[in-house]
């Protein structure tokens, strides 16, 4: 398989890097729970490309999350989590037709997946489970996704239409 580096993939990588830096350096200062910005980029890519591409994009974005200091405890946890979330969001991929509810549903599903995997460790170890934080995270991510994911999709479609990507 020949790897084709398109402008779109470069832009996506830049966007992922930007959101990862933001969510490590800026968001924690604003509050203990925040929206998952990286996931929104993954969901937008998954909605355009389908489950397989979504999972691949999630894997790459998750690696960025894992590696950005201070990082995660086990290298690869975020990568696998976002890969599953990207695959789940890709299930809402449609070849034709544009629906306003699709991005919201896909974001909700992906955010729930990430939260479910996140609380797996506390649940299996008998630690206190942060139900409230997980709920807030899902709610904030979905709310932001309602606005941002359609914008991202529109921007990527515009790029494809103009043959820039």
């Amino acid at each position, binding site marked *: 398989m020949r790897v084709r580096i398109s402008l779109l993939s470069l832009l996506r990588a830049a966007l992922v890097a930007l959101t990862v830096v933001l969510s490590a350096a800026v968001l*924690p200062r604003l509050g203990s729970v925040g929206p*998952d910005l990286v996931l929104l980029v993954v969901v937008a890519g998954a909605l355009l490309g389908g489950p397989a591409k979504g999972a691949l994009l999630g894997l790459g974005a998750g690696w960025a999350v894992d590696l950005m200091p201070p990082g995660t405890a086990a290298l690869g946890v975020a990568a696998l989590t976002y890969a599953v979330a990207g695959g789940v969001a890709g299930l809402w991929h449609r070849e034709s037709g544009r629906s306003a509810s699709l991005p919201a549903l896909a974001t909700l599903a992906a955010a729930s997946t990430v939260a479910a995997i996140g609380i797996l460790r506390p649940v299996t170890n008998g630690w206190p489970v942060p139900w409230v934080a997980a709920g807030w995270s899902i709610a904030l991510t979905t709310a932001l996704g309602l606005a941002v994911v359609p914008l991202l999709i529109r921007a990527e479609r515009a790029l494809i239409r103009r043959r820039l990507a």
Partner: protein
Amino acid sequence: MVVATVFVMGLDLAQPGSTSFLRTGAAAAFGPLERAVTVGRDDEVTRLTRDRDELLRQRAQDAEAVRQAREVTSVLASPGAKGAKLLAARVVAFTPGSSTTGSSSGERRVTIDVGYRDGVTKDLTVIAGAGLVGRVSAVAAWTSDVLVVGDRDLTVGVRVGTGGGYGSVSATAPIGLAPRPAGRLSLTMLELGAVAVGDTVTTLGSVGGRPFMPDISVGTVVSLDPDRGQLTSTAVVQPVVDAAKLDVVAVILSTRRSVPRAPATGSAK
């Protein structure tokens, strides 16, 4: 004309936005006219407004710089830093708060903006103005990761109160007790001894000062756990440093005494 007007009004009420092309067109046509006839619109006002905004921004930046300088002073003047060589640093990143993997499984780590090029090595003590922050867990060229008090994996040996009883402080509650409220720590005494509410908790110190230097404030005992027939008492500790609001910290570099201690002569007659 009247029918058309009523129709447009109904359309505007029933489906707001559907008549926006009319408003946009009118705005395009009449907007410049309105701008032209506005009295007193001169460049002086525009310039002064811009200057004012610029100065306001400048003032906010200055206030931020003053705040950071105060924090550095406070770290240098804190009791734990007495006589030690310190490396001031800023916290640049946190374990993400989104529920992914980080804080939901009890991780509290931060990244600070000094690394091995600045002389930082693993397992050095990190303090803030109020007291202990944690220990350096990983070092890169220009940044280091710090394991902050409150992380699930971090346990600190401590002395408690005026009696100086030994104990350990960690984020996990002792077995059989309900989890602590967010941000609180658990103190487990190692020996039989009285712990009272309000006792200060300071670090015991490690061999060679790694990972923890002695006598750095960790927190205050806020409540005692009921006696359940366990060997030693346990209590809840409020840490002095709020991990979520860390900004200016300092890494303690010097670990050894440099001045020899003078011997004393017995004074009994």
